[in-house]
């Protein structure tokens, strides 16, 4: 056991957790933010993607301990109060989600992708989402959503 402190959606969270606690379990079980999902055990599905110091990370691939002192944003921290993030808006407007389970990871991956490359192309979007599995949408509308989100975030494509 050991104490872990990190910043989660702007708020300092300190918990005493076992050394082998995954970051995703720290977020879900210890802090109680359940928007970050667990869809597989092999770091394949991307339902648990969060931002760690601005970089998208599968929260099931790292230990909470490795995130000591980090600045973490989860899906719950993306909107500005009641105002959705442009990427969240784009998913809503383009029907980029159905059951919603993969959605938090999709949106977090998309935001990072577009932040790094605002003029992102369709091929780049499809390749960039390779680590996020969706079983409902066939990705068509997710790709449209990311394109629209990129435009809202200042992209030209």
């Amino acid at each position, binding site marked *: 056991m050991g104490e872990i402190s990190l910043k989660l959606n702007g708020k300092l969270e300190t918990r005493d957790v076992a050394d082998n606690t995954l970051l995703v379990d720290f977020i879900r079980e210890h802090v109680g933010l359940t928007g970050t999902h667990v869809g597989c055990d092999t770091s394949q599905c991307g339902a648990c993607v969060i931002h760690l110091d601005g970089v998208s990370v599968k929260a099931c691939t790292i230990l909470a301990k490795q995130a000591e002192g980090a600045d973490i944003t989860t899906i719950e921290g993306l909107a500005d109060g009641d105002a959705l993030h442009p990427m969240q808006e784009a998913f*809503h407007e383009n029907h980029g989600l159905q059951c919603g389970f993969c959605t938090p990871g999709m949106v977090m991956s998309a935001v990072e992708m577009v932040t790094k490359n605002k003029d992102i192309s369709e091929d780049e979007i499809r390749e960039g989402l390779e680590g996020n599995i969706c*079983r409902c949408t066939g*990705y068509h509308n997710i790709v449209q959503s990311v394109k629209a989100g990129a435009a809202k975030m200042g992209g030209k494509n």
Partner: protein
Amino acid sequence: MNEVTKIDGIGSSVRRTEDKKFLTGKGKYTDDINRPGQVQAYFLRSDVAHAKIKKIDIKNAQSAPGVVGVFTGDDIAADKVGGPICGWVVPCRDGSATKEPPHPLLAQGKVRFVGDAIAVVLAETAEQAKSGAELIDVDYEELSPVVDFENAGDGAQIHDEVPNNCYFDWELGDEKATADALSGAKKIVKLRVRNNRLVPNAMEPRCALAEFDNLDDSYTLHTTSQNPHLTRLVLAAFMFAIPESKLRVIAPDVGGGFGSKIYVYIEEAVCVWASKKVGRPVKWTADRTQAFLTDCHGRDHVNDVQLGLDENNKIVGLRVDTVCNLGAYLSAFSVVVPTYLHGTLLSGQYDIPAIYTNVKGMATNTVNVDAYRGAGRPEATYLLERTMETAAREVGMDPAEFRRINFIPKDAFPYQTQVALQYDIGDYEPHLDKAMEMIDYFNFEKRRAEAAKRGMYRGIGISSYIEACGLAPSAVVGALGGRVGQWESASVRVNPTGTISVFTGSHSHGQGHATTFAQIVADKLGIPMENVEVVHGDTDKTPFGMGSYGSRSLASGGSAISKAVDKIINKSKKIAAHLLEASEDDIDFKDGKFVVGGTDKEKAFGEIALAAYVPHNYPLETLEPGLEENAFYDPTNFVYPSGTHIAEVEVDPATGVVQVVDWAACDDFGNLVNPMIVEGQVHGGIAQGIGQALLEDAHYDENGQLLTASYMDYCMPRADDLPSFKVGYTTTPSTVNDLGVKGCGEAGAIASPPALINAVIDALSPLGVTDMSMPATPQKVWKAIQDSQSVAAE
């Protein structure tokens, strides 16, 4: 297309009202819910496929840190708790019944597949439960595993009750007439196709949280279910023998189902049982590997097809002999999927004068096989559309034209097929034409030639499918062996201010019911959609209903809502007549207002609602106050969506990789309530079909070990495996329901695999390739290319 009369009414692509919670991480899935004092369950599962259990030693597990309880099949048996039941059985050819072996919640004396649950360990944490389970010692006497379902009859007997490992041997159609038709045919096309085994893989793994309240001796179960009322019925009536009122089942937000969350699984039942046993809430969450091992799989057929043609290339007869794998135990709808949801679809869109089919359902030492998106209909469509393509090639006709001359003509509806179904309405040429136009079919050869210059093989493939959804009517279902009703329920409550609460027996796990159903109500009542809330998924709140599967939610559930709203309107007219001092017959209802015909006297819907709940000026002597109506709707027939999908692919001969370069889907779903949502359903279905055709394969080795038990080994379609899709529609409104709607949830998965495989074969046809099995992996395609070249060299 429908006339859209209202910005958020029927026919309008309203953005979904349920989105915001999912987009902000506020969705509440079962695993997001916890109860004070809960313990975690872990199931010890068999790691061998077929064995007698000689001894289970739980002693060390019981004293492990954090462990609260360890239970085995003996404990369940001592409490006389029943196992899962089969919801539909069929008669066999020899007059005997489907063999229904018992399915104990935890193994009793024998394990029958890798993943079969042997014991449950309850502990303070999930990790402690898992560590405790590792201390259980199971002494097996291994038996010969039965994996190859085609030869399962020769294998070791899995259940005492199932001789030759054959659950049923069923037939449909006229065998003699079909034999006569085939013997008189000018040409017989023969084909053997395999429908590969798939894992549904809803992104949310199964989860259950059960709690027992000893004050009133009742249970609450949160679970990942497509149909909470059926779950409650099965648990209460067949497993625990308690009144339904003592069990509340809540299926909150559910992260996809695709069929896999229809049934009551043993884990849910064990959690309910154990919650009373240990007096604490019990939670179980599957990890992905457990999902692969224990969720019901789909498909897994082999079909031998014979199609007879006359001198004009018209079909004269069809015979299909099918063997299918149903796994270790009979799951709830496992029997109906390959029989009445498969054999009845064999006429497709074609006028076939004689059809006969025989289906053998086999037991194997693999996990149960049951419904997966399409459930029987993709298998029927695959074998038929592969055969149509093969036949067209063999007789030298364009595949589109060969289909066209065999379509059921537009003026032949209602059309009685030779396999029990009567199609109420359809018109097949328009969606073939439109799909061909969408994909620019007539310029395909130019594209093929251009691709050839780049060293690529380009191909095009067609699939014209029929679907039967909204399984009904109940009486027919019962006559065919179904043990449940197939109606749907709705309760529409008008609140005093005129807002509406709709309680539906359907369940949404991604389909957008909160939006679609609200559109129907808003449109019919002429009120804003935001005034309508849709409640589902809680047996304490919603009327008894059958849930969502088989693309039934709109056709059955939406129609029930529509009927309940009609009752609201009828009662409101009576109230309006009283308030307006007019005859009820003179009251018209339009745009949310009750108007006395030919006058300007009117009452808004909200005023009627208020009068119903504050009945100070109200015909109390003839009319009850309040405004709330129920409807139970039992459809008179299935609804029959149809369509044509055309796939275009390029094959890289250097790698064998098949790239899907274009896709045109033209579907007839009748009237559309929300085209945006429908299109999303089509996209998702196509993606699952492309997954089946190119990527996915659940593979057991000869020892019954599932080799594809994670996303590392089972190839799920990802964003860069798929193209964007062109989606279009034709419309023949269903005559079965007032809304004129059909169903759209499964169509994509039904239509797409044969279109894609036909395209791959077309691409490789210059090399002489005539067949390709699913999934058409790069290795398989590359090998087909190499083999064809070595044949050419000889």
